[in-house]
């Protein structure tokens, strides 16, 4: 990282910390959503961007993480600081099991992607039949007291959630930066570019792919815990849905797969875009269901056609970072 990039990052960090005092509650909720997608996208990027394994089922870890921590809080009143660890351990194990099955049997590429979808869908339907967690009717956490901050139970005003997800996103950014420039990071990139060649060089492909899977699923579990306590209601139909997985990965793909800043930029662009479309169509008085998503789809199409590597690499080249 050169000096200009470091300076830019510092300015961005300062802006993000000061953000809640410069704007209103609506902007704060949008910013929270952006950071949530930036964090989850960063977690997915470890698998796809670094190690080259395309997962289309990351909603599995979000959902299991959310339900584990949410369920523990709902039934026993134990706050997320304990549930968080249970969720991380469980999702990491889940990721390892799926990774073990897939990589042992030599499943990769499209087949791996479809396997991850299958596990997420399988779990979604399974959760529909777990009565203690609400089944298809959903699980509802007691809504937070919006005026007092209860850090122990992670209940409080929106600003608390904003800083929590900001800290997570920053932490993930730093962790991924360290990872990418570590020995493991170079192993991953070698595997991503050419698995056979990496194997021939003596890299234990299986082990490092498993590590990517473990880190990615564990990180995503934290996103799930945040989701549960921020939104307070969980439905299997929604949280495990394949469109949730797609939402998570659109950010990094649009921003730039394999780059550190891509997931953050992509999340910001997509969230602002979808909000902007809503506002614009509302202002024009056009209220046809589906019209927003059609427009969104067209923009995605244009970006992926003309910026195959994502937005961030193009900007980074311009800025000579």
């Amino acid at each position: 990282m050169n000096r200009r990039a470091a300076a830019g990052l510092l300015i961005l960090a300062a802006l993000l910390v000061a953000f809640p005092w410069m704007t209103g509650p609506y902007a704060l909720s949008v910013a929270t959503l952006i950071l949530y997608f930036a964090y989850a996208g960063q977690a997915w990027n470890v698998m796809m961007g670094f190690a080259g394994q395309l997962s289309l089922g990351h909603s599995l870890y979000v959902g299991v993480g959310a339900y584990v921590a949410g369920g523990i809080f709902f039934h026993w009143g134990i706050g997320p600081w304990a549930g968080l660890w249970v969720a991380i351990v469980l999702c990491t194990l889940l990721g390892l099991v799926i990774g073990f099955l897939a990589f042992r049997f030599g499943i990769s590429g499209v087949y791996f992607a479809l396997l991850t979808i299958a596990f997420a869908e399988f779990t979604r339907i399974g959760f529909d039949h777990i009565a203690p967690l609400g089944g298809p009717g959903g699980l509802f956490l007691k809504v937070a007291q919006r005026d007092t901050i209860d850090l122990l139970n992670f209940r409080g005003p929106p600003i608390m959630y904003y800083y929590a997800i900001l800290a997570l996103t920053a932490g993930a950014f730093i962790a991924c930066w360290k990872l990418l420039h570590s020995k493991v990071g170079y192993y991953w990139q070698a595997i991503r570019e050419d698995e056979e060649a990496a194997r021939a060089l003596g890299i234990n492909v299986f082990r490092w792919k498993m590590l990517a899977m473990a880190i990615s699923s564990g990180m995503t579990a934290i996103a799930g815990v945040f989701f549960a306590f921020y939104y307070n209601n969980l439905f299997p139909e929604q949280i495990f849905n394949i469109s949730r997985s797609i939402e998570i990965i659109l950010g990094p793909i649009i921003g730039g797969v394999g780059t550190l800043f891509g997931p953050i930029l992509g999340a910001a662009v997509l969230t602002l875009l979808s909000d902007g479309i809503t506002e614009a169509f509302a202002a024009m008085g056009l209220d046809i269901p589906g019209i927003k998503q059609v427009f969104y789809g067209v923009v995605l199409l244009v970006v992926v056609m003309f910026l195959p590597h994502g937005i961030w690499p193009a900007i980074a080249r311009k800025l000579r970072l």
Partner: protein
Amino acid sequence: MVVAGVLTGLVYGLMALGLSVIFGVVRVVNFAHGEMMTIAMYAATILFAALNVDPFLAVLPIAAAFFVFGYALQKGFINPFITRPEHSQFMLLVAVAIIMVNGLLMVFGPDARNVQTDYQLESFEVGKVLVDKARLYAAGLAVLTAAGLFSFFRFTLTGKAIRACADNYLGAKVVGLNVKHLYAFTFGLGSICVAVAGCAMVVLVDVTPGLGPYYTLLAFVIVIVGGLGSMGGALLGGVLIGVSEALAGLYIVPSAKSMFSFGLLILVLLFRPQGLLGRKA
């Protein structure tokens, strides 16, 4: 129930056959497959409502339109993506799928539509088994179309050229085949399968825009179980899934029926990733 499952499964199989043919040749997974299927179903309901055309007749113009559409989609959008990484192709087709689902939602709204013909309530009695007429016709059409496709690939020059592209992209280019044109042609053929399957399906179920993603997933499950790229496998997988859905709906909780399909998918992926009838890559 088993018979009904087999017959519905054959229609599923035809839909999945389209996906399988496209993947087998072009090596692109069509994430907008189910969405295309719902478009065909809507087209059939429109022709029925406006001109009172039976879906089994409407299949001809709809299939023709879909061929052109598929050809253009491949030529204009997907061909430039052939050499790009998988996630890039995936994004492209997801964007297309989003546009299709919500385009349908814009035009038709969220309410279910259907066609009503007199044979939908009638049935044949074979021994002790009652077979719905509509279901039998739908399955017959599916088998006919699949047979047509098989013989096309087997006996015509274009079919052989397409198989050559699938076997060896570089080799096909070297001997002077117009690969881009053949890819587009293949996508058109796959679209015909979807169109016919859609017309057959619309006499069996009501159509809503939300069905698209469901059919896409279903098509994935079927082709993986049968073998991605294998034509017979797609039909076999369709029948398997059709029967298992019918039986699971009868004996277990109806809402758990697709859990069964996904369980089957996971097992197949783990122990025979090339699918039941697939060849090793």
